[in-house]
């Protein structure tokens, strides 16, 4: 190995060169690799010398004539084939030659599918951890020839248990985001890496003498023990340093957060707490909660009460849902506590509170009261007191690290005490409370340094900006809410030479090591108490430190924060309240430039590409608006304009604004999407109950087009919703019962809807002769509409994103969609039911006989197959599909992506090009450039990318079935020759060898995929029509779908009526 400074120097040189001659980088890579593997100093040194001179370039031209064209191409479009290779980082060919081109330098260890050697075309899985807003989910990254293509859950990690949430799925696309920051800049000028490193080192020097006085660090919540270790080091060496952690998702972030083990809870009360999606602590919550539904075994079913201002994913699974304005939450909890203590209360929610209290009391220790993070500390403390009163065993609390708050840092900056501000991740200039005016505050600091994945709102204001490494490019570690430690391993060398927080913190604190790998090993040694190589390898391989958990920070409550009263904010038609909610799609705004997430329909509103002011029909009437009308919201001296969107089940006089939209910088996707609701959110609102009230809401008279994937014509939405819900009920698409009903009449589910056909066909149906007969069961009782399956399917099957205009036309491409139905007569008893819907693989598929060219046919294993090569696109199959799950490529989505549109619209706005008159009708595809090379890297190589004019749909992940067959053949020692002799049908895959992407990712196991004929398989008992909850959607058509649904069960409290 060459020594460290030499490697650093060569990296630096490469970066310099890359700016002008990116295509040459590969040659240098080879040189570097050679230098790293052998002490051939003279060689790399001469390269190093040469690149400073222009003659080097000339030499390169002469030596590699083919480079000339490449250089030219590069100048023209910025992405030549060679750049692609460069970006790909790990070229397998070079690896084969032992040159290790841009592979991570430190060893990581494949998970349980460790190949003997790299096999091209065979995916490898490595354990790593996805961290978002302090929540860690252990994942396995599927990599193909060194590029990650899919995120799967790590079954060993408690927050995953094999599944992931929707955000972890989408995080893959962020890695390949072409808008990622590529350069280190100082005052907007691109500078070399060594200059930046020198700057960091000089900070270390400068502040060591002042013990950190004048240095402030604002960072996102990495939930990383290694980061904490470095912060300790900073506190030791520079004790005066002001360090704050800021996550808009964590609300006031003053109190410790809860960790709920819902397996111990019989009665759960969630107050403004979306614990299955945006307030998710991890899969454990969901899994335990769902396991407690206890439908398929003995035991009592748990009961969930949800009181919330706007329907959330959690609200959809509630047994009882109360429309509770956010401003009433604290008072509600106070009343609940009072009733539990046996006091009388005066409240409009008295009936509800009474019933809930009774249930909670009966459950005793098996109860849990969860209060959402967006509620002020007072409400959270009340929740904690209720849990204490009930002696709940399910909820525990952990402390937060002893750090300062963002407002304290801002105070210091305003007082002129801070000379250097380091911003690690996050995007406080965009999402800090509005009253802090953080964007202005940054300007008051002489030196501000930003490490961010994108050049966003915050970077624009800082003196320095350096690209941050994506987690799939980083070394790191993470700790889950229960203390489980997991590893963050790089799958790929940083595409743009990004920095990890570890390296930056190490450099400014002059930590003896700067290589993140070394730092993680230090941290690991501290936690595991072992420096053995084997322990480390096991950690890297499994992703999780087994047998040892990190001690959680002690729970420390600061009751001062709840002193401020009153708990109840008064709201009325004249004084509306504003609730701020995390977006179900783009979270706090961090996924705003992620096209998958922008187009991922909100579980409740089905809205894409925008946020809107969510309000009830009564509220809309009071304001005088309809869905799609713009309203002006004035709150505490600040205002914004946003489109109204009527949602059944929203509390009256309460308006919810999803956060994260309305970005102004940070890529082309995030522009022109929604309105920035952070502009209204102030610290007071986060700290005290009822502060976000008194909003004045007036119609502006303007209209705005909102792109929903259900109710495409939003104009008559209320009327429409009424018809559609009535129809859904009449058609028994959704079947819902109570446990008692099911007990009294096991056939009740079957009896719903159109009378079922006599299951006889007048035709002799072709025999399905495959050894496996694939099927799927979807348990509506388990589905929490979290969208993880939607994005997992998109990632697995290379499903294109179409953009807002096309969603407005109803052309979204999701193979798997989650249908949402409202139920209930009026807003007060509205409940929602989600229903994942994808190709049902009907045995009597109506799509098959109508295709004139035999492009959709049935496989012997019961799959309804789509032959893309044969399809000419008559679209008759889609017309004849009762489930409307087929998706048509109206354009060449893969050639002209949404990105070009966005770029064009940005260029138009910037005045670079004239507006395109055809925009608004359809896009000039003829001239569209090919898909960006970087985005191609995110594609699954095992799935065909479809061209325009062909139909596509869910395949039950046929590529996974075939891969499993190949794997199984080699496992049982059956070579290809044998396989051929026996015929493919002879291979019968055992249960559990293959699962679809949606089933695999589902954190609540609502989707089960397998062989329907395998009596011992995991599918059979759910699929079997003798299961009292199993039914087929549109059974009367006798299309014999292979996907069966299981009826939803609401554990209704008789005291509260139907819902």
């Amino acid at each position, binding site marked *: 190995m060459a020594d460290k400074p030499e490697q650093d120097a060569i990296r630096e040189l490469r970066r310099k060169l890359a700016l002008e001659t990116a295509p040459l980088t590969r040659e240098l890579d080879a040189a570097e690799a050679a230098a790293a593997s052998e002490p051939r100093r003279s060689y790399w040194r001469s390269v190093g010398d040469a690149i400073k001179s222009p003659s080097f370039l000339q030499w390169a031209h002469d030596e590699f004539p083919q480079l000339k064209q490449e250089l030219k191409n590069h100048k023209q479009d910025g992405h030549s084939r060679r750049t692609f290779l460069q970006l790909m980082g790990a070229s397998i060919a070079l690896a084969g030659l032992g040159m290790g081109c841009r592979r991570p330098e430190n060893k990581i260890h494949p998970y349980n599918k460790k190949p003997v050697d790299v096999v091209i075309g065979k995916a490898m899985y490595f354990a790593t951890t996805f961290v978002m807003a302090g929540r860690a989910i252990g994942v396995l990254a599927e990599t193909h020839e060194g590029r990650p293509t899919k995120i799967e859950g790590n079954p060993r990690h408690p927050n995953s248990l094999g599944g992931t949430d929707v955000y972890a799925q989408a995080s893959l696309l962020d890695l390949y985001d072409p808008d990622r920051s590529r350069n280190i800049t100082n005052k907007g000028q691109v500078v070399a890496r060594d200059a930046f490193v020198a700057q960091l080192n000089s900070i270390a020097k400068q502040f060591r003498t002042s013990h950190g006085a004048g240095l402030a660090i604002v960072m996102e919540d990495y939930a990383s023990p290694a980061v904490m270790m470095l912060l300790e080091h900073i506190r030791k060496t520079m004790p005066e340093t002001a360090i704050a952690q800021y996550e808009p998702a964590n609300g006031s972030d003053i109190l410790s957060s809860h960790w709920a083990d819902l397996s111990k809870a019989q009665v759960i009360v969630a107050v403004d707490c979306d614990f299955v999606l945006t307030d998710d602590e991890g899969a454990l919550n969901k899994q335990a909660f769902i396991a407690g539904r206890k439908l398929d075994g003995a035991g009592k079913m748990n009961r969930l009460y949800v009181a919330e201002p706007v329907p959330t994913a959690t609200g959809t699974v509630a047994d009882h849902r109360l429309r509770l304005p956010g401003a009433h939450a604290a008072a509600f909890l106070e009343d609940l506590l009072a009733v539990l203590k046996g006091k009388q209360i005066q409240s409009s929610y008295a009936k509800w509170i009474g019933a809930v209290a009774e249930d909670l009391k009966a459950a005793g220790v098996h109860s849990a009261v969860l209060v959402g993070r967006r509620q002020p500390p007072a409400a959270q403390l009340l929740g904690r007191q209720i849990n204490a009163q009930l002696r709940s065993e399910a909820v525990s609390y952990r402390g937060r690290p002893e750090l300062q708050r963002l407002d304290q840092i801002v105070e210091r900056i305003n007082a002129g005490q801070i000379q250097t501000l380091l911003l690690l991740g996050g995007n406080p200039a965009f999402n800090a409370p509005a009253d802090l005016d953080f964007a202005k505050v940054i300007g008051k600091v002489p030196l501000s340094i930003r490490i961010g994945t994108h050049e966003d709102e915050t970077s624009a204001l800082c003196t320095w900006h350096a690209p941050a490494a994506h987690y799939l490019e980083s070394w790191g570690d993470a700790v889950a809410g229960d203390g489980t430690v997991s590893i963050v391993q790089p799958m790929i060398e940083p595409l743009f030479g990004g920095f990890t927080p570890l390296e930056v913190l190490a450099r400014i604190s002059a930590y003896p090591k700067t290589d993140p790998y070394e730092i993680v090993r230090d941290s690991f040694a501290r936690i595991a108490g072992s420096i053995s190589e084997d322990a480390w390898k096991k950690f890297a391989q499994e992703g999780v430190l087994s047998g040892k958990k990190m001690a959680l920070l002690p729970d420390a409550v600061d009751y001062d924060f709840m002193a401020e009263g009153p708990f109840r904010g008064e709201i009325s038609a004249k004084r509306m309240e504003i609730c701020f909610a995390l977006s179900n799609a783009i979270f706090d705004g961090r996924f705003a430039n992620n096209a998958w997430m922008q187009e991922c329909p909100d579980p409740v509103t089905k809205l894409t590409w925008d946020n809107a002011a969510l309000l009830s029909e009564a509220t809309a009437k009071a304001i005088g608006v309809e869905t799609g009308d713009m309203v002006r919201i004035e709150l505490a001296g600040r205002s914004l304009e946003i489109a109204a969107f009527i949602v059944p089940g929203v509390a009256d006089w309460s308006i919810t604004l999803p956060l994260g939209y309305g970005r102004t910088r940070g890529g082309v996707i995030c522009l022109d999407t929604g309105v920035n609701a952070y502009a209204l959110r102030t610290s007071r609102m986060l700290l005290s109950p009822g502060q976000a009230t008194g909003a004045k809401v007036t119609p502006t008279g303007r209209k705005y087009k909102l792109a929903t994937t259900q109710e495409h014509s939003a104009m008559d939405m209320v009327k429409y919703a009424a018809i559609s819900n009535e129809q859904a009920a009449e058609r028994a*698409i959704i079947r819902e019962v109570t446990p008692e009903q099911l007990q009294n009449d096991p056939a009740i589910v079957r009896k719903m809807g159109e009378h079922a056909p006599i299951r006889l066909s007048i035709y002799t149906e072709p025999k399905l002769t495959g050894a496996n007969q694939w099927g799927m069961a979807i348990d509506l009782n388990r589905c929490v509409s979290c969208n993880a399956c939607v994005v997992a399917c998109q990632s697995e099957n290379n499903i294109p994103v179409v953009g807002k205009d096309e969603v407005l036309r109803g052309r979204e491409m999701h193979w798997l969609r989650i249908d949402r139905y409202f139920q209930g007569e009026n807003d007060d008893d509205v409940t929602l039911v989600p229903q994942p819907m994808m190709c049902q693989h009907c045995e009597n598929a109506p799509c098959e006989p109508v295709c004139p060219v035999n492009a959709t046919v049935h496989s012997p294993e019961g799959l309804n197959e789509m032959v893309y090569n044969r399809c000419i696109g008559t679209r008759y199959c889609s017309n004849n599909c009762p489930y409307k799950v087929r998706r048509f490529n109206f354009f060449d989505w893969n050639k002209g992506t949404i990105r070009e549109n966005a770029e064009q619209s940005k260029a138009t706005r910037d005045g670079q090009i004239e507006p395109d008159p055809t925009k608004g009708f359809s896009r000039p595809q003829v001239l569209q450039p090919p898909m960006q090379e970087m985005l191609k890297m995110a594609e699954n190589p095992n799935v065909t990318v479809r061209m325009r004019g062909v139909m596509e749909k869910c395949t039950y992940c046929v590529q996974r079935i075939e891969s499993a067959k190949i794997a199984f053949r080699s496992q049982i020692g059956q070579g290809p020759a044998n396989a051929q002799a026996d015929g493919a049908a002879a291979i019968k895959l055992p249960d559990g060898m293959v699962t679809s992407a949606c089933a695999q990712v589902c954190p609540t196991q609502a989707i089960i995929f397998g062989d329907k004929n395998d009596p011992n398989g995991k599918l059979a008992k759910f699929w079997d029509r003798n299961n009292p909850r199993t039914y087929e959607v549109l059974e009367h058509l006798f299309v014999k779908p292979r996907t069966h649904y299981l009826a939803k069960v609401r554990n209704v409290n008789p005291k509260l009526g139907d819902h």
Partner: protein
Amino acid sequence: MTTATIQPDLQRPQLVLGNKRIGDVTEIVSGIVEKKTTPLWWKIAATITGLGAVVVLNLNIFYLFTTGVGVWGLNHPVMWAWDITNFVFWIGIGHAGTLISAILFLMRQRWRTSINRSAEAMTLFAVMCAGIFPGIHVGRWWMAWFLAPAPSQWGVWPNFHSPLLWDVFAVSTYATVSVLFWYVGLIPDLATLRDRATGKLKQFAYGLFALGWRGSNRHWRNYEMAYLVLAGISTPLVLSVHSVVSMDFATSVLPGWHATIFPPYFVAGAIFSGFAMVLTILIPARQLFGLQDLITIKHVDNMAKVILATGCMVGYAYGMEFFTAFYSGNAFESFVFRNRAMGPYAWAYWTMVTCNVITPQFFWFKKIRQNVWLVLALCIFVNVGMWFERFVIIVTSLHRDFLPSSWGYFTPTWVDILTFVGSICLFLHLFLLFIRFLPMIAMSEVKGIMQGHSLMNADQPLDVHGRKE
């Protein structure tokens, strides 16, 4: 002749008025083609429609071909809209020609002779317009040849279960037979034009297509037999083509499409729309070329009666669809029809009902039937209504089907609209070319039904071409 003994009331009305002699028919009909100066209105109309057919239609198809089906307003529940609406609309238009020339021929309806030529020509042009749409509406038009049962090394054949494939055969058969029928009927008249032609080019061109017709007894015998056979072949086609087209819908599972009433309902609708289109075109032509004596008010009256009869059948079908949906007790069926009448496309549904059910009722009154301008106006309504009928069937059934979650709404784009306008231009342009270069009335047939006195009145004998011997 014993006409004198028949009382005037019982006498069949004259089919050719104005005491025309045989020669006069030839003069009038050939005169239109032979006239040296082209009328100004023709030039203007041909230029406009020609531009529409060549520029508008082709540019829109080019844009569609290079860009994708997304240039139309189609979306996920509504995968067919104007494309297939136009296809069925044009196919339906064609039916009048075949009916007039085949069925009325076999039924010895002699009044057909003065309108059958132009009605058949209209059939051809309508089928040509219809043929455009299935070809261009597919997603990968360059692969449309997969529809042909062409043997290939893959051993993959088209799917003979698919009604779309039946369409391919039905429409191509229909087009072929229609061309043959029309052309065979033209031969004697082409010979007439050849014989009367003054220029060499005309002589050659008409002569080429007249296939050496000399009007010999044997020629006539073969001709009559061929015509009869072709009429026999065409007759089932009148019923079968639109029945097959209706099966595109009837064989599906979609409520609103899945109905056994569709084949007769579609055939009736096709004849209804076809006759309306014949009148829409012939009334102005008759007026512009002064053919009132050949295409008499009696012809208009008769056709109006056919429109009335088929219009009532169509109205019955509309009612019966509702009854079936109600009587089935099927929630999906009844919703589709409720939605048609009261849903977001109610405007289209009521346009259709007004035009197709109410409009023809005016034809109960003889006064209205005999007022050509009123008839023309009503026929235009019927044309509009019949386009809407197809639109209603296709789009309203698709846009809200089984699962409310996937409901949508279709709005056409300018490409949808201009492509349809282009096809109308093509139709009209072809018709304009036809009336300028070919005899728009079957001279030989008209002569055959002329009353005896027309011949007797001649001062001196004329040959069959109306020339003095």
